[in-house]
C-alpha cells in the first residue's frame, strides 16, 4: 500500500485514492495517418517493463482528478519523484544506480 505525493494536492495520500494508468510519456503521434503500421503498433501496444526505475502515469482519482507522473522503482517500490503533466523526470534509469543489483540473493 503505497503512499503517494500528489503534485497538485501537494500532499501525501493513500494509494487507494489513485489509479495507475500505465507507462508515462507515451505521446500520441501528431499525425497518425503519417505513421507506418509498425510505428502505430509501437504506440498502441509496446511498453517498457523495466526491473528498476520506471515512469508511470497515475491519476489522483479520489482527489483532484489530475493525471501526473511517478518515477518508481519496480523492485523496491520506492517513489523517487512525482511530477506534473508536461514535466520531465529528473531521475531516470541512467541517473539512478540500481541499489538492488548489488544486494545478494535477489532474483528477477
Amino acid at each position, binding site marked *: *500500500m503505497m503512499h503517494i505525493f500528489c503534485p497538485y494536492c501537494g500532499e501525501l495520500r*493513500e494509494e487507494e485514492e489513485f489509479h495507475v494508468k500505465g507507462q508515462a510519456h507515451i505521446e500520441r503521434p501528431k499525425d*497518425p*495517418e503519417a505513421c507506418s503500421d509498425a510505428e*502505430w503498433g509501437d504506440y498502441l501496444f509496446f511498453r517498457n517493463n523495466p526491473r528498476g526505475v520506471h515512469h508511470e502515469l497515475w*491519476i489522483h482519482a479520489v482527489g483532484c482528478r489530475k493525471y501526473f507522473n511517478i518515477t518508481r522503482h519496480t523492485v523496491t517500490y*520506492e517513489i523517487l519523484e512525482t511530477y506534473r503533466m508536461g514535466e520531465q523526470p529528473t531521475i531516470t534509469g541512467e541517473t539512478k544506480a540500481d*541499489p538492488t543489483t548489488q544486494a545478494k*540473493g*535477489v532474483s528477477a
Partner: protein
Amino acid sequence: MSQQDNQTAAAPRRLASGGRIDRATPLTFTFNGKRYQGLAGDTLASALMANGLDVLNASFKYARPRGLVAAGAEEPNAILQLGSTEAGQVPNVRATQQALYDGLEAHAVSGWVKAQKDLMSRFLPQVGKLGGKFMPPGFYYKTFMAPASLWMTYEKYIRKAAGLGRSPLEEDPDIYDHLHQHTDVLVIGSGPAGLMAALVAARSGARVILCDEQEELGGSLLSMSADCLDQTLDGQPAIEWRDAVLAELEACEDVQLLPRTTANGYHDHNFVTLHERRTEHQADLAPLNARGAQQARSRLHRVRAHRVIMATGAHERPLVYSHNDVPGNLLAGAVTTYLTRYGVAAGDKLVLSVNNDHAYRAALAWAAAGREVVAIADARPDPAGVMVEAARAAGIRIIAGAAVIEAKGERRVTGARIAAIDIDAFSVTGAVEELACDTIASSGGYSPVVHLAAHTGARPVWSDEIHGFLPALGAPMLKGFDACGAANGSFALEDVLVAAYASGVAAVEACEFETAQAEVPAVSELAETPMLPLYQVPHDKPTARAPKQFVDLQNDVTAAGIELATREGFESIEHVKRYTAMGFGTDQGKLGNINGMAVAARCLGQTIPDTGTTVFRPNYTPVTFGAIVGRHCGELFDPIRYTAMHEWHVAQGAKFEDVGQWKRPWYYPQGSEDMHAAVERECLAVREKVGVLDASTLGKIDITGRDAREFLNRIYTNAWAKLGVGKARYGLMCHDDGMVMDDGVTTCLAEDHFLMTTTTGGAASILEWLELWHQTEWPELDVQMTSVTDHWATLTVTGPEARALVGELTDIDLDRDSFKFMEVREGLIADIPGRIFRISFTGELSYELNVPANYGLHVWKRLFECGKKYGLTPYGTETMHVLRAEKGFIIVGQDTDGSITPEDLGMQWCVGYNKPYSWIGKRALSRPDTRRDDRKQMVGLIPTRKKAGDERIVLPEGSQIVFDPEHAIPMPMVGHVTSSYYSPTLGHGFALAVVKGGAKRIGETVFLPQADGTTLEAEITSPVFYDKKGERQHV
C-alpha cells in the same frame, strides 16, 4: 456428568507463590471435554501446564505426542481448537497467546491423524507404523512431479488434513472492524526497547502507537525476576520502571497503547497492519458493550506510520537433538517465563542444554522454585561468567563441552542422554551419560524477530556476531523503518535501552519534533560471556540413523529429512523448504528455519549465509478472515447504488438486476408471472401502448467550452461539427486501437454546451477517459467536463401512446413536427423544471424525461397517475434488452468485447472517415488486422424452426458458432451469440451474434453445438429484426 467430574483437580504444577497471576480469581475451563481450573492472568498454555497436561496434540505427519515448547507466538505444537458453540469455533489458536477466561473450551486437533488412518485403511493392506512411509520427505515435491493421478489420489485426504483445525459450520455472530490509523511513530513490541523508544517519542509530543501481541505490555520485563539474577533499572525491579513508563504513556493524549495487538504485516512505505484481539480474552463470543451494543471481537488497524520502530525482541532457538519433540522438551526461556510470570513449573527434574549464559536463568528460577536441577549441559568447553557461577554456587552440576544428544521417554521425558561433543567435527566425543529427568530445556541462542522487516522484500542479513539474521536496515524497502533491542541483535539490557533511546530520538527528529528530556535508566551490572554457535547436536549415530531430530515441529521436518533433500540435489534453501515443507506450517517455522538452514549448510559444507537468507511474508501469525473482512460484509459488502425511484420499484414488487453497483429493476412480475411471462407482457405493452423505464443509471457528463464540439469530434468516431443547438446524436467511442469502448447519445444544449450520455457501466471510466485526453494530449482545448449522472433522474417513456401521456404532464409542445426525433426541449414536467429528449432505444416513439433527482420519484408517480388510461406499464432491463435487440441496437460490453470495431458492427454510418482530426481509433481502422475480411462481424440469427414449438427456441448466449457441424473436433469456431431472447412481437426467438465474415453470409445456415451434445441451427440475418425502416420512432 457425575458430581465428581464437576470438581476440578488441584493444579499440580502451580507454584505456591509468584507470577503475575491472581490466585484469588480461579477460572474454569475444559480441555478435550474435561474440566480444569486456571487463574486469572494465565494463558491457556500456562493453565494447561499447571494442570500437568503434557500431551496436547498429535503431530501432523508422524502422529507423535506433542506438548508445549514455547510461551509465545513461536509455539509450534499447542495449536488448539477453541469454542463452546458451533458458531464460536476458532481454529489455529496458539494456547500460548490465548488468555484464559472462565468457560473456555479447548480441544486438541486430531484431524490429520484421522485422515491418515482413513487413508491407510483404504489403500494399505496392513496398517503399519503411522506416517513416515506415507509422507516421506519430498512428499509434496514428488507428488506434484509424479503423474497427475497420484496427486488426485492423495488430494482429498491432504485437503482434509490441511490446516490444524476446522472452521465453524454456522454463521459467525461476532462482528469485526477496521480502524485507519495515522501516526508519527509506531513502536512494535513493548519490551524494554519498545517502552524506551515509545517514551522518547511520546515526550516529544509525537503521535505514538505502541502495540504488543501479548496480553500485557512489558515484553521480557514481565518475566524478569530476582530469582534469576535479572537486572534492576534505576535500582528498582525492572517491572517498576515498566509500570512508571506505561503510566506516563497512558496519560499522553496522542499515545495509543494496544496490548493483544500483533503487527502482522509490514507493507510499502511504512504501512503496517495490526490485528487487535479485543474480546478474545473475555469470552467465546464478544460480549455487548456498556450500551448494550455489539462490539468488534477483533480489529484490523491499518496504520500509516511516518516512522516504524521494530522492537519485536528475539525468539530463542531450540537445540536439535534426538527425540527433542517428546513432551517435556521446552525452550529454556519458556521454562523461565512459565515459572516467573505464571507461577508454573514445567516439571520436577530439569536438565538444561545450552550454549549461552542467558539460558541459565531457567535453572536458577527452577532451583528457586524448589525443584531439582539435575544438570546443565553447556556446549562451551569452559563456561564462566556471572550466571554460570551463580548456578555453580547453587550447587547445580554443570557438564562442560557437552549437550543433551537424545531425550528418553514417549509421552513425557523420562531422561536425557548427555555426551561430550565436538561441534567442528560434528561428533560425539565422549561416553554417553543418561540422567533421569522429566524436563529438558534447551537454548541454542536467540534469533531476532526480523519477520516484519522482510515483508517488503528486504532480505535479512546474517550476523556472525550474534549468529542470527538481522533486519536489513537501510535497505530501500525499509525507509523510515528502524529496529532496536533484541530484534536488532542487542541482547544486553543496557545496550537495548541505549539503542532504543537512539531509535526514539531518530524517529522524533525525522518527524520534526523536538526531543524532550528523557533518560535511559541505570542498569545494574551483569556480564554475560559469549555463546558458542550450535544448532543440530551430533548424535552417537549418524543423522540418517539417529532417532528423529526435529527441526520443524509443526510440519514434522527432521534433520535427516533436510539431509536427504541436500543429497537429492536441493541446494537452495528455498528448494529445501519446498522439498521438506519446512516452515510451511501456521508458525512459518519461527523456531525451525534457522536450525534448518544450519543443517542444510552443514550438509552442503558451507556457511549459513551462503545457503541463503530466509524470507518471511505477511502475516506474522494467522489472522481470522473476519478481521480482514471487517464490516464489509452482509448489506455492507459492497456499495449498492439506488436511483431516486427505487422505493417505488420495491413497492411494485420489481425483481432487480445488478448492473455494476446499481440495483436496476429487471422486470415487474404481476401475480404468478415468471420472468418470461412478465417480459413478454412488458414488451408488448411498449410496442402496443406505452411503457416507462427508469434509465437514471445512464452516465451523464455535462460538457462546455468553445472547443467542446472539437473535443467531441476527436473522442467520438462520428462527426459533431454540424449538430445544431437542440439536436441530439448517437455517438460511438473507440480506444485508439479502434475497438469500440462506449456509446451513447450526446445532445447540443447550446452552441458550446453538450450533455453526453454513456453506458451505465462506463460512467466513471469515460469521464476519466475524457479527462485523460484533455489533460495529457489536448490541454489547449477550451473544454470542461463534470459528471451529472446522479443529478438527473431519467425516465424513458416509450410506445405509441408516449406523446399523449407525456403531453398531460408538460408545458413543452410535443407536436411531431415542432419537436422532432433526436431533439431536446426544456420546460416543466409535472411542475418540475427539466429537459425532454426525444430519443429512442426501443424503436418506438420515445421521450426521455430528465428532472433533478430530488423530484424524480414525484414525476414517476405523476406519470402513473396519468398513465392508467394509456395502459402505462413499467418495464425493466430485461424488456429493454429485448426491445433494443429487436432493433439491432448494440449494448457495449454485451455485444462487444474489446475486439470489435465500428465496422465489425456494420456501423460505418457512425464513422467520420473524413473528419479533419485523426480521431481516437481512426488510424487503427486501417491496420491490416482491422481490414481482414474474416473479422467477426455483427449479424442477426434466427433459430431454424422445423416443427411446432421451435419458435420458442432461444439460442443460449455465449454459444459458439461453427459452419460445419460434421467437422472433426476441435471444430473451427467462427463466432458466438452475444444477445439472445424470445420476441413476443416477432413470435420467435432471435439473437445477435458475431460471425467471421458474417456481413456477407446473410441467409446462410450456421450451427451451434451445445454442451449437452445437441446442435442448434440458425439462419444468419440482418441484425435489425423489427421496423427495419425505423419509422416508428419518428411518428
